[in-house]
């Protein structure tokens, strides 16, 4: 057979690097988001391990108090601003246009700008360790007057504030992009009720980012100007001003971090239960309701700050009300699995991990929402236990569910399921070992953010157990990384094919990884489960 060989020059290494640096493809930008935020996850995780080592025994002097303050500040802000939020945004970046049947985001260049802003914001925030030697150390809340120039004179504080402004700009740009993309670029036939559920959660998340972030940006600019230009926003005034502006963003931020993870669950659970999502419309409405109510609860962080008691009671009420739409979701996931033929692969296990731990975090949240309980547990390890149960037990389990579910699509190869199950088991046990004892520590009165403690308080054993748990989590993440390297980098994993899970949404209708243009032909959608329709049609054909 005669063949004509056309010499196609393979691009050299520098050409490929340049292609990544200048890309506006939503998939490549998504991958860069995932990779860089995973890097910040590891970095912030290392900070957490140092913190746990320091607290393993009473009177440890692994790091001094100042370094300890930097470590927990950078652990918190790194996890929140540089891992959970950008990771979920990155997942959305990769998946949302595919789920919509679109070829890219609405504004590809703004998309790229958003990623590069985020990466440099991260480097700026962590840069405090190098520039001037002291990073931000006023906790992630950066309450005034602790964060004013008088008490935190270091440059690290200024550049940390500036870094968070950049993160805010980046996520605002991303939010605008998501909203316009989802509004205008849906495949023909994709009505509002047929938008895939993960994309629905991204809509609500983007709306929350759009409306909450600018308030934090205003507060940050005010604080920066106080520190550098001698303005008086926070120096002489009531410290509750900062608290209000900060929590007006930072409480919705909690839902910004959990809603896309809930979206991942709502994709994974139906696919691995071989059933449609239970109560589709109720699920969508509960997502919107969480988004709306999320803006009405921020004062519950300030119950001991001397807010008017009547105002406190209002926010206690809204805090408890928001548990209702959240409960709707838990109920719906369980009802979806009920009598389904469960395919107990790692993604579903991660979802079960999410539900089992998130319920504990949700209940402890409602407990804290009650003013008398909050007065007792405020600023204790109880609170640390609570928010790790929702943000690690919730968001991070959701993130890993999404990784095991979508990495085959992104990379074209399956992760090893057996190793994945070990990862899940170790992470779930390690998580509960690390964070459940903190409930007890909190009730026994151990304050958060202390660098060490005396031996006679009875806090030794729970702290030691928590430290062991933290290292179990670290080992489990190491297992995941080994799995990734073996299965995907070394190409030992099975080839995924277009649709390894027999899933429902359009991202599985194209090759793995998808071509640059995503779809050769624009798909047409007739229900919220277009691929299910396709399979049914294919089954029906032989009989006809």
């Amino acid at each position: 057979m005669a063949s004509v060989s056309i010499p196609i020059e393979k691009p050299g290494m520098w050409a490929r690097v340049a292609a990544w640096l200048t890309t506006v493809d939503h998939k490549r930008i998504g991958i860069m988001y995932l990779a860089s935020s995973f890097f910040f996850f590891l970095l912030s995780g290392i900070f957490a391990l140092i913190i746990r080592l320091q607290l393993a025994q009473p009177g440890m002097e692994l790091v001094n108090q100042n370094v300890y303050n930097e470590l927990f500040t950078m652990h918190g802000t790194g996890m929140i601003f540089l891992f959970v939020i950008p990771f979920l945004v990155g997942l959305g970046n990769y998946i949302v246009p595919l789920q919509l049947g679109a070829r890219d985001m609405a504004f590809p260049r703004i998309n790229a700008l958003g990623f590069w802003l985020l990466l440099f914001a991260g480097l700026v925030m962590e840069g405090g360790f190098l520039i001037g030697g002291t990073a931000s150390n006023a906790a992630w809340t950066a309450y005034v007057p602790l964060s004013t120039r008088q008490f935190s004179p270091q440059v690290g504080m200024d550049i940390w504030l500036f870094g968070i402004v950049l993160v805010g700009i980046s996520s605002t740009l991303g939010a605008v992009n998501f909203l316009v993309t989802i509004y205008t670029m849906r495949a023909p036939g994709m009505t509002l009720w047929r938008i895939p559920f993960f994309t629905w959660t991204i809509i609500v998340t983007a709306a929350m980012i759009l409306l909450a972030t600018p308030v934090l940006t205003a507060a940050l600019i005010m604080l920066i100007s106080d520190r550098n230009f001698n303005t008086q926003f926070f120096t002489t005034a009531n410290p509750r001003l900062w608290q209000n502006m900060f929590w007006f963003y930072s409480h919705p931020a909690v839902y910004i971090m959990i809603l896309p993870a809930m979206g991942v669950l709502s994709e994974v659970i139906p696919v691995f239960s071989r059933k449609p999502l239970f109560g589709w419309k109720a699920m969508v409405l509960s997502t919107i309701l969480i988004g709306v109510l999320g803006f009405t609860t921020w004062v519950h962080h300030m119950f001991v700050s001397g807010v008017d008691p009547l105002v406190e009671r209002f926010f206690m009420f809204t805090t408890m009300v928001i548990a209702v739409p959240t409960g709707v979701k838990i109920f719906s996931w369980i009802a979806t699995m009920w009598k389904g033929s469960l395919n107990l692969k790692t993604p579903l296990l991660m979802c079960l991990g999410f539900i089992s731990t998130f319920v504990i975090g949700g209940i402890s949240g409602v407990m804290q929402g009650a003013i008398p309980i909050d007065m007792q547990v405020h600023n204790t390890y109880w609170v640390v236990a609570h928010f790790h149960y929702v943000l690690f037990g919730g968001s991070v389990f959701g993130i890993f569910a999404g990784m095991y579910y979508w990495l085959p699509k992104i990379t074209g190869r399956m992760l090893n399921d057996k190793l994945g199950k070990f990862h899940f088991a170790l992470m779930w046990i390690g998580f509960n070992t690390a964070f459940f004892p903190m409930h007890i520590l909190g009730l026994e009165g151990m304050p958060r953010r202390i660098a060490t403690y005396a031996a006679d308080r009875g806090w030794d054993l729970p702290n030691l157990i928590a430290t062991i748990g933290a290292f179990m989590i670290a080992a489990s993440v190491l297992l995941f990384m080994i799995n990734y390297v073996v299965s995907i980098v070394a190409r030992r994993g099975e080839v995924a094919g277009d649709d390894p899970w027999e899933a429902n949404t359009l991202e599985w209708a194209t090759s793995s990884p998808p071509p640059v243009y995503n779809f050769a032909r624009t798909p047409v959608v007739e229900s919220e489960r277009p691929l299910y329709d396709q399979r049914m049609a294919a089954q029906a054909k032989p009989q006809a």
Partner: protein
Amino acid sequence: MSAFTTPQSSIRRQLPVVRRRRYNRGLLGAVAFIAAESMFFSGLFLAYFFLRTDTTLTVRSDQPLHPSIALPLFNTLILTVSVAAMAWAERSIARDDQRNLIVGTTVAAALGLIFMLLQSVEFSRFVTEGFTPNSSAFGSTFFALLIFHVLRVFAGVTFMLIVLVRAFMGQFSRHRRAAVQACAAYWYFIFAVWLLVLAVLYRS
């Protein structure tokens, strides 16, 4: 299947039509961005009212709680005419009138510049009276609203200059005018914020 079912109607059932591309993407993006901007100003207003209502703060007697409103009122007039000119420019390009688009945008941008100039006069008046962003928490929030608003005016004028350059290059028509609409929408937003700033800072 009914014998009356025509092929057309079955196709229509297969392809439920979604309203697509009724709005320009860029314009929608601009509207979303304006929503974010309005929350930024909400934050500043929140800070202002928080400090105004905080009885524990002592307000210095030399602070003009109700400063003279003559110059700001004149400035309001200028911004009103500017907004009208921009609206006229937007209408003109909707009717494919490129000349009036240029005239309207030029007038609007020039008046925006005059507004900025007069705001700087206002700032220097406050500073000579000894009322500065550094004098108190109240002064800081007062100036924050004024300064962040005038920065938006600067951004709006820059936006208009870009529209002008593109208009001179003949890039706009009845069918391609989303940038003009976005610019006008932003300018209306800045005007609305100014009315709030005026009412709150000078007469609340």
